[in-house]
């Protein structure tokens, strides 16, 4: 499955030209951002508020990733290994947040976890917990949008992994939980890492669900994407600087992962 075939020789123009056009389409806007960055004014534009928004973004994205790992790995396992009926349908449902406009996700979260929401009204009445307009709300909004990336990635790895090792462990008397921890999980670790990084990057860039569900308040819910959007209204230069910071952080993380998330588990 993972043997690589390298086709050598002349590359067909009919493929190379559109490929280069596609590459330019994806990279030129990012390059444009860097060209237009007012590098000279950079230190002045990087105010304390930017630092605060970046710090909040990094913390929330990391917490959201932890949340996704805790719930997403078991969910991926359920989709890949359990004999659950209707798994295909379930898998389709899990991917819905991937294609849903994030604002819709935010509204859905408000309707369920908001102060008047289906679950939220009880949280408020019984425990005095109100999630909207809190940092916890940001984490939940980000986890909602990012979790499918983790589930899909881990599920793919689980499907590709050889089940014979698990079977061997089982015949040697290991319980399913022990097998999962000591055999399954290590064998799909590259998939888990790749999923976690994608999940983290998606959470870092989350805007729509965050602003809809968690609102926007400096130091509490204003993450970098929200800061970029609002800066654009009055100070485009500041917005460009914020965007560059966010871009560098994202590229840094994806580059650190190199080709691990492209190639399957070996």
């Amino acid at each position, binding site marked *: 499955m993972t043997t690589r075939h390298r086709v050598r020789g002349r590359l067909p123009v009919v493929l190379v030209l559109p490929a280069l056009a596609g590459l330019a389409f994806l990279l030129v806007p990012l390059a444009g951002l860097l060209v237009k960055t007012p590098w000279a004014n950079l230190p002045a534009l990087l105010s304390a508020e930017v630092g605060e928004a970046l710090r909040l973004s990094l913390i929330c994205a990391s917490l959201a990733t932890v949340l996704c790992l805790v719930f997403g790995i078991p969910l991926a396992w359920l989709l890949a290994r359990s004999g659950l009926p209707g798994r295909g349908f379930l898998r389709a449902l899990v991917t819905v947040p991937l294609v849903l406009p994030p604002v819709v996700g935010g509204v859905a979260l*408000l309707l369920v976890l908001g102060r008047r929401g289906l679950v939220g009204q009880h949280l408020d009445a019984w425990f005095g917990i109100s999630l909207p307009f809190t940092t916890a709300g940001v984490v939940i909004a980000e986890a909602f949008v990012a979790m499918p990336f983790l589930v899909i990635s881990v599920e793919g790895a689980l499907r590709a992994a050889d089940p014979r090792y698990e079977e061997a462990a089982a015949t040697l008397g290991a319980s399913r939980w022990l097998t999962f921890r000591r055999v399954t999980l290590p064998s799909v670790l590259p998939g888990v890492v790749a999923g976690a990084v994608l999940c983290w990057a998606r959470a870092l860039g989350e805007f729509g669900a965050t602003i809809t569900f968690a609102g926007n308040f400096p130091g509490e819910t204003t993450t970098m994407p929200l800061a970029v959007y609002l*800066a654009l209204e*009055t100070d485009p230069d500041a917005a460009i600087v914020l965007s560059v910071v966010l871009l560098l952080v994202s590229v840094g993380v994806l580059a650190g992962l190199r080709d691990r998330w492209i190639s399957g588990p070996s």
Partner: protein
Amino acid sequence: MRGVVVGVAVLLAGCATGQTSGTSEVTGDVTVFAAASLTESFTRLGQEFEAAHPGTEVRFNFGGSSALAQQLGNGAPADVFASAAPANMKQVTDTGTITAAPRTFARNTLQIAVPKGNPAKIAGLADFAKTDLKIALCAEQVPCGAASKKVFAAAGVTAAPDTLEQDVKAVLTKVSLGEVDGALVYKTDVKAAGDEVEGITFAEAGKAVNDYPIAPLAKAPNAATATAFVEFVLSEQGRSALTAAGFDAP
């Protein structure tokens, strides 16, 4: 097919085709870039204009005034610009995209918006300082937030908001869902929100009156119809549609 092409064009740059450039006849397509808060009233005015001038078709690109101003500044082809704030109109006039002086056609003032039944018993601006209430305001960077800042300064109230939203409709959503106890939005938004939201007027609202300027654009593909539409908005008929939506006459 043409519809699809035009639709894509509208999506991409908020533009549409005007095929009757150079004529002084009031006919053909006219593209109006208008502030989001004008959505209901201008949609209605557009229909009335089309009825009054057979052969015309009014196309709208509704959005935040600053976003529209940026699109126009970047060359989006349009015939008319109706802004929710003079500052955004000035952005466009500064680039020389408008020749005729913009005229104020409507005014909007803020109102306190509360969920149906006013569960937190909000009576006035002073309640916005209470930290135990959930309060939503527009961010200062957008016009309704700048206006909110003015009225709080006039009232001597230090507001304790829980969220600063990116536009007035986002604030309104939080009110109609009951997620916040009170918010400041435009009078017209309370009216457009229907039964879920109640409006409370307050004395300091007069300190932050928002003027709406309108002007035909210099490079209007359909200049004659653009001018006719601007006149129509400023006419008695236009005024009555706008006051019905909750705007004040200039």
